[in-house]
């Protein structure tokens, strides 16, 4: 179930590093959210640009939702001007979200960039807590560590410059840890981050026989499954078909995905 709602901005602040947090009073959308879902936001005063922008839902409750975002282009730049009290039109919650943890499975979170935000609700909801691998360029890019720790997760940061945790990509921490696991096949990964990270984790899942749920990041236009912009190739018995990241995803199991460039 999705809704279109004129949300009232309850707060808009710097969060950490280049990220800002936008808190929206949006009871209709807020009360429907499952972990891993996203919303489509109409950026106010962006007259010349006509499409909504998708953002993962960081937190949600019966009062509303919040998102974490970074300025990367015109839309996210114009978002900086949003003020408490403004009205912001959102459509959500969208997408399938993450499935619940399989019985007997060992949950592992892997995230980079806004992926940390996308995994927070999953981390909270998960009956079992485990290890979370968070990657970023510098310490500034690793979001929400204390929050995940407060939920009972063992957070293992990696940074490109070594300013926090292990130096290197997320795999630099994940691979040695994985090598130590006795029952690799019991692992169930929930991954959200840039495409190379998704692919790296997907490849390992297939090679080592564990489960990896990957939240795919594709440019979107409608966000509801109507326009067929956001498709990825999904394996079928006879070959492949297009699957829409916004509607059929954004979460797919690694074996479903046929990677392109």
């Amino acid at each position, binding site marked *: 179930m999705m809704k*279109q709602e004129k949300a009232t901005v309850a707060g808009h602040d710097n969060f950490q590093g280049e990220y800002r947090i936008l808190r929206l009073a949006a009871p209709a959308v807020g009360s429907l959210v499952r972990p891993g879902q996203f919303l489509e936001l109409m950026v106010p005063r962006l007259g010349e640009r006509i499409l909504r922008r998708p953002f993962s839902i960081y937190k949600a409750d019966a009062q509303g939702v919040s998102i974490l975002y970074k300025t990367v282009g015109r839309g996210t730049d114009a978002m900086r001007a949003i003020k408490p009290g403004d009205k912001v039109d959102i459509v959500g919650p969208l997408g399938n979200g993450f499935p619940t943890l399989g019985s007997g499975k060992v949950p592992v979170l892997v995230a980079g960039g806004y992926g940390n935000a996308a995994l927070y609700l999953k981390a909270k909801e998960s009956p079992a807590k485990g290890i979370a691998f968070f990657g970023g360029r510098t310490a500034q890019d690793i979001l929400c560590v204390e929050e995940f720790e407060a939920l009972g997760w063992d957070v293992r940061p990696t940074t490109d410059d070594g300013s926090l945790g292990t130096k290197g990509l997320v795999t630099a921490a994940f691979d040695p840890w994985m090598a130590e696991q006795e029952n690799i096949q019991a692992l169930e990964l929930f991954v959200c981050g840039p495409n190379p990270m998704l692919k790296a984790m997907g490849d390992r899942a297939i090679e080592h026989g564990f489960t990896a749920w990957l939240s795919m990041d594709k440019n979107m236009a*409608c966000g509801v499954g109507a326009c067929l912009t956001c498709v990825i190739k999904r394996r079928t018995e006879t070959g492949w078909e297009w699957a829409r990241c916004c509607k059929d995803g954004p979460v797919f199991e690694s074996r479903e995905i046929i990677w392109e460039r």
Partner: protein
Amino acid sequence: MDVDLKIRIGSMEMKNPVTVASGTFGYGPEYAELVDLNRLGAITVKGIGPMETLGNPTPRTFETRGGMLNAIGLPGPGAEGFIKKYIPFLKQYDVPVIVNIWGKAMEDYGTVVEMLDGEDTVSAYEINLSCPNVKEGGSAFGTDTDSFSRVVELVRGKTQKPIIPKLAPNVPDLGKFAKAAEDCGADAISIMNTMPAMAIDIETLEPELANRTGGLSGPAIKPIAIKLVWDAAKATNLPIIGMGGIFEPEDAIEFMLAGASAVAVGTANFSDPSTIVRVIDGIEGYLIKKGHGSAADIVGMVKA
């Protein structure tokens, strides 16, 4: 005051003049949680070919100033798939369904209609003769009056239901196509499809669309579409379904004044799913304010 919003296109009666533009509203279910489908004058579905098709590689869309490019490229379940997957859903609503049809070869148009024509839920066919995003057929049929007429005649021979050729905008004289549609027995015409267009990423040197070129839609093209509707209205008495950048009720009214009997909301669905309902209500409000008894009254009323 009561105003009559009804519009008739051949045997199809629309409870109001507002439908959606093919390809921007899926096949019906996609927006059903956000939009009360029973409010619509008609539902126009994404283009249906004779067989299942995959469409173009990604990226398929790109946002531009005041518009967007798309090169979706007509992926779809094909006529059989459409009947199986979507007719049961569409049947539930009290809204005529316009199926947008396309083909790679000329015969394909006939084949789709043959496959669909038995379905009562299908109320009319919009014939896509103007898709800029498929190599074969598509646009080529829509920019040459001879092949245009042959396709329309072929479809006319296959069905009693209303047929609505959709015209290509990139021709110097749209009136000829409007006239040809009339001569070949069409019941209405749709104006306009997207405008052939392109964008290039100056960092990577790659076109922004995998298909390289695509079609421009959205507010940017509205003034072009209004002009084409006005041109066509002078050349034919067929009802016109006008579209191109309708984002506000005022835009829809502008199309009707230019000569459109009905309008379609396209790209605006992505931007604001409430557009269709706002447009329907806005047209009604305008008619009341201006003292008109029916939507048909304002069609072509521009003082020009």
